């Protein structure tokens, strides 16, 4: 396989990894998958692209505004949907999940209504430069994406394992009832987790949009791929989402390289069925399947 494809796998893997990390922090703090993350990413990407194209804003300002919008949307999700509907310890999470899926749909449509339904090229944060790595070209955009992912994951790991709030988040994820009884600040931690989810998904959507553009109806794919990356990687380690993202990207890119564009969907389906059937705990073991 050409080296260029490996570069592309790393780029896609970082993108999926960031989306999976956004789901991961919410799952650790509240025990459910936040399916709305794809909506945050699409909103941030389209917002940045729209502001740059229609209002002539500098790309960086557009991306920052988009990320801000994503964080606000994530906090709104927490306040308007999760707070009234979240009932820890019961088996009744279905309405909450459906509400989150509905909000994914609403966010996608909101982005479409606000910023237009046409696909847009993403805002270019860096120039066209790059360097040669063997036979492959690594663009400045790719360097930016990988560096951003590395920094974000580094900070996330530090925060999760070193800060009091990060430890609280993991404690709540391990045993919500006990955490509530011990008086851990469950709500504050959940707000922090949703802020982080908005930030991670927003940065992924805003920064990676320059790679292959952004369209309002990608939200569901983003959510699905992030979810799959999280399931493949497993939730036992903070690095799980990133590794899962890379594995998923590798499977998709290999399938497209050997079997053509339609194979993307076949390979993703096959990967999902295989992983769910054979290794439901993910690569980093911890119970994932409900």
């Amino acid at each position, binding site marked *: 396989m050409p080296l260029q494809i490996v570069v592309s796998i790393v780029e896609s893997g970082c993108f999926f990894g960031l989306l999976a990390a956004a789901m991961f922090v919410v799952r650790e703090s509240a025990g459910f*998958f936040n*399916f709305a993350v794809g909506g945050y990413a699409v909103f941030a990407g389209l917002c940045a692209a729209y502001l740059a194209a229609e209002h002539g804003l500098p790309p960086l300002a557009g991306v920052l505004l988009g990320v801000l919008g994503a964080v606000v949307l994530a906090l709104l999700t927490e306040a*308007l*949907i999760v707070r*009234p*509907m979240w009932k820890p310890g*019961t088996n*009744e*999470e*279905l*309405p909450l*999940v*459906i*509400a989150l*899926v*509905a*909000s994914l*749909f*609403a966010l996608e*449509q*909101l982005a*479409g*209504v606000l910023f237009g*339904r046409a696909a847009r090229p993403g805002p270019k944060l860096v120039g066209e430069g790059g360097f040669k790595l063997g036979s492959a070209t690594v663009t400045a955009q790719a360097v930016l994406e990988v560096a951003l992912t590395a920094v974000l994951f580094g900070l996330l790991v530090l925060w999760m394992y070193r800060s009091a709030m990060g430890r609280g988040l993991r404690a709540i994820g391990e045993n919500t009832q006990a955490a509530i009884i011990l008086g851990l600040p469950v709500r504050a931690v959940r707000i922090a987790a949703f802020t982080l989810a908005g930030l991670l998904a927003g940065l992924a959507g805003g920064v990676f949009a320059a790679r292959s553009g952004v369209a309002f109806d990608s939200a*569901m794919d983003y959510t*699905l791929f992030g*979810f*799959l990356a999280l*399931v493949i990687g497993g939730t036992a380690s903070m690095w799980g989402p990133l590794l899962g993202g890379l594995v998923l990207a590798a499977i998709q890119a290999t399938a497209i390289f050997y079997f*053509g564009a*339609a194979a*993307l*969907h*076949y390979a*993703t*389906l096959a990967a*999902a*069925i295989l992983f*769910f*059937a054979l290794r*439901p705990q993910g690569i980093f073991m911890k119970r994932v*399947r*409900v």
Partner: protein
Amino acid sequence: MTGLARLGRLRPAAEPVLSLVVLLLAVAWVGTDGYRQDLAVLTVTYGLIGLGLYSHFIMGDSLSIAYNAYAAIGGYALGLVAARTGWPLLVSLPLGIVAATLIAVLLGSVTRHLSGFFLAAVTLLFGEAFQAWLVDADGITGGAAGVIVSRPVTVFGHELGRDEIVVLALVALWLVALLLSRLRRSPYGVALRAKGQAAVAVEAAGIPVTVLTLISLGIGGAIGSLAGAIFTAANLSILPESIPLSVAFLAVFIPFLGGRSSPWGVVIGALLVTELTFNLNFFQDSGTLLFAVAVVVVLIFAPEGLIGVGRDLLARVRRALPGGAGPAGDPDAATDRELERRPV
């Protein structure tokens, strides 16, 4: 005993009669108006897909959502029989239903160990892969251009026009909703609903849960295929984009919007989704946005859907009436309500 309570006793007979009256009114309202016919076809399509999901998702708690695939199978069966064979078009209906049922059961048995979002994710990916295959396999499906239904549907030599197809579509929706409402109260339906709440207990009671689930998935696939066949018969063509993946999403929301306690909730939800996405599209295609927001609002404030709101209002009226006792009237309905009272 008040008149209302007496009405409650008549419920088994009231359901088909009342719904038949509504059906006749709907048929009369639609008439031969082309625009109203479009609305009716869309409502029937959404309604049937929602009813398909009702059979295994609302009753049995398996969130298998590849409905765009089942509907496409029904639609393509009609299109391909019209384009590639000389058979009467009615043959395509059982063909499509059998094919969709088989695929639903096959997908169900591959994913039988999954539940919740994991099942939803895999079936969603299946729906996406199927959509990609429809475009990809242009030798079979006509690719992105799709197939055109070039001949009219005939029944014993009589050609069905669009007017008749629309009436038949409404009748089909009524019939399927009625049958599902009956099925829901049958021993099978009770077992399926119990499985949705506590699968282990049902398995322990000697009912094979996997078979129970696969049957419900097969029923869903068959109804989904019927939806696609009706949609295609009314529109006379089928493309991969005719039935997009988002249809599956809308179908998941429909029962929550209308009310999960009865298949009629699906019909109400389908009416609403048609109204919101088609009729009220006044502001830049924002109908879908309105619909999604409406679903979220209903889920937060009225978890039992619009039927639940109506039932609460009715119960209040009953209590306010002198001598009107709550659920005393119909013992069957009372146990029914207990089963439905899921702590949401």
